[in-house]
């Protein structure tokens, strides 16, 4: 039976995350963007919301909640509404936890899931994108060579969040050469298991520490390989749904800011919002944000129902990434010259929003 209503539990989850976004994340967003550092306390407080440990079964020291894509998209929108860099950092452990929970061996689950501590942020991450122009997942170049007891990894990865402080990094690679998504598996490397080449300097996401890393023939014992058996596409689907929700949050931040500004800012004796040119733009933004959110919800719902949502997730991500440019660009435009200054956050949201059309695995549901 169709319903667009959040359950009581989901409403509470949304409100908790929204409160954290506004009272904690937003307080530090500009400073973090300028300095390239997220205050440790923000990460600690964000971690204590339990978003990356809640779905870990009690047997592995977690809260034993269900892994719900729909709950996760609600969370992602709210947190990204606060700040995108902080959200990706706080939720980075899920980039390893969720794949391990879904595809890991008993031994891997025991080892890695139990490393998560509800009261202390432990870094985990995954490495997928590679530093090549026109990077394309289908032709992922990082290889895992079978050498007896180990796999030997070669290649380079880019935009790996918190690679410098992660206890374990899930590296995606393929055995031998080839094309397509089916042959991609995961390989878990410990801290120090690869060389950090440099910290990324991006247009946006400046507060988030992302790195290029070099694998340099890193040896991964076979029991540390996360055999996906073609399941990579499921993980990709879950990551793309996450992107739709994240970008919805960033857009909502920009939209709300522009809307409030338009009601305050007076030109020719009236608030600029009382002009249709501004008001209609805001209306368009509101329509697109609603559509994006519904796409995230519907696709997450499909995942929770066990349906194949690859097409919907991919299509929705592309749609949302496009709409995000329209929304954040116009939010900046509505502020006029002030939108171009770093006195206001809209230029930051505009920069942050650009990432969705180009990156993968920013978060996972």
């Amino acid at each position: 039976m169709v319903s667009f209503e959040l359950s009581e539990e989901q409403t509470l989850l949304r409100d908790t995350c929204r409160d954290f976004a506004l009272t904690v994340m937003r307080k530090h967003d500009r400073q973090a963007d300028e300095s390239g550092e997220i205050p440790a306390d923000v990460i600690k407080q964000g971690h204590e919301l339990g978003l990356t440990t809640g779905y870990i079964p009690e047997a592995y020291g977690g809260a034993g909640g269900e892994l719900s894509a729909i709950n996760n998209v609600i969370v992602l929108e709210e947190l990204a509404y606060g700040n995108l860099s902080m959200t990706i950092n706080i939720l980075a452990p899920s980039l390893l936890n969720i794949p391990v929970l879904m595809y890991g061996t008993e031994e891997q689950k025991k080892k890695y899931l139990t490393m998560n501590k509800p009261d202390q942020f432990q870094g985990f991450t995954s490495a997928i994108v590679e530093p090549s122009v026109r990077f394309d997942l289908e032709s992922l170049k990082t290889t895992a060579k079978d050498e007896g007891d180990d796999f030997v990894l070669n290649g380079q990865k880019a935009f790996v969040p918190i690679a410098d402080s992660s206890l374990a990094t899930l590296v995606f690679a393929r055995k031998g050469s080839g094309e397509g998504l089916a042959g991609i598996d995961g390989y878990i490397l410990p801290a120090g298991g690869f060389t950090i080449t440099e910290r990324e300097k991006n247009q946006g996401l400046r507060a988030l520490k992302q790195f290029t890393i070099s694998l340099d023939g890193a040896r991964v014992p076979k029991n540390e390989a996360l055999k996906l058996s073609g399941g990579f596409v499921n993980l990709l689907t879950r990551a793309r749904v996450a992107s739709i929700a994240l970008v919805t949050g960033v857009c909502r931040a920009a939209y709300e800011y522009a809307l409030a500004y338009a009601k305050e800012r007076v030109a020719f004796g009236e608030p600029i919002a009382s002009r249709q040119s501004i008001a209609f733009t805001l209306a368009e933004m509101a329509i697109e944000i609603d559509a994006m959110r519904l796409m995230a919800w519907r696709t997450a719902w499909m995942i929770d129902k066990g349906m194949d949502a690859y097409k919907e997730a991919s299509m929705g991500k592309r749609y949302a990434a496009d709409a995000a440019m329209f929304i954040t660009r116009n939010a900046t435009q509505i502020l006029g010259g002030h939108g171009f200054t770093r006195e206001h956050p809209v230029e930051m949201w505009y920069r942050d929003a650009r990432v969705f059309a180009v990156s993968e695995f920013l978060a996972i549901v």
Partner: protein
Amino acid sequence: MIDFELTPIMKMAREFTHNYARDVMRPISRKYDEEEHVEPTEFIQKTHEMFSSLGFSFSTARASEEAEKSEEKKEKHDRPKMEMNLLGAIAIEELAWGCPGLTLRIPGPGLGGAAIMAAGTPEQKKRFMKILTGSKPSYGAMALTEPGFGSDASAVSTTAVKDGDYYILNGTKIFVTGGDMADLYVVWATLGKELGRAGIRAFVVEKGTPGLKIARLEHKLGIRASDTAEIVLEDCRVHKDNLLGGEKKEEKGFKGAMQTFDATRPMVAAMAIGIARAAYDYIYDDLVIKGGLEINYGKSLHKRGYVETVLEDMEAKIDAARLLTWKAAWMLDHNLPNLKEASMAKAKAGTIVDEITQKAIELYGPEGYSRRHLLEKWMRDAKVYDVFEGTGQIQRLVVARAILDYTRKELK
């Protein structure tokens, strides 16, 4: 709990209406486009019988359910037995996929019925819905627009002057959908210009009432299977019992007209989506099914061709508009205020249907321009979906006022 699972009856309705659209409507769609003003008599009779016998004509079912509900005590959190607006949106998308013009020709309460449901007293709902849901094909029309105004419904100049138990109506109404075949017309008139919006009321004028005449039929760009009439009221006497909402309930007047749109805009949006999908399916069949083009969802852009990404964009837009439409319809089913959402859905659907039907012709090439194919018809049909039931601009105005919390004066 967020859920996108259609009920079995919704799935059944979708399948039935789709098959009906494909087997009955599509084959005659071109004929009634070319032969404007020719009544599709056989289609009307057949469709009426079909829906009546099946018992789930969405409009009929909705009308009877609403009438029933209005007699019951209003209980809070009382979930509707059947989500008629959502069901209606699902079914009408399929019918419009078959032919939007013929869809508007399907007998039922129509816009007149919607206005009666929004502004009528329980007694009036019962009385008039009986006429509109009877055994013979019937139709309820809405007569609001006048030569002097379109979007600005507060500018009604048709007059209603009280004379004992009667009101005498005088004025001209244009763009009355189905105005040639209506069994009753909901006519909006003013009790006195000095009363402003509060003086605007709706009167049910039954077919054959002396003084009511059909002046002419419009010649239109699209939806030609559906006739649009100009009607003239000359000293047309209507009993006070036909004044919607009764004589005293002044506030139901203009507001009633506007509330009608909460229910009709999602339906119009759903029809627009049906047309967009028709055009999309038509070129999909040619390019993908017959032509072997692959749509590589999720692949890197530099590895993809222009045409496949255009197809994906079309599909995504249809999806976005449909989700907005379902939400707006669902809200109404659950008695949630949906003024903003109904306009969002209508604005989006009205925009994408033009874009998609235009682009589909381009992708089809010169042949797409030919009347041998329905693509050019759908592009013509599409245009009105960004015009009637409130233009795209009016929808944006409604949305903007809602999000800004602005009055009519604050945002003109």
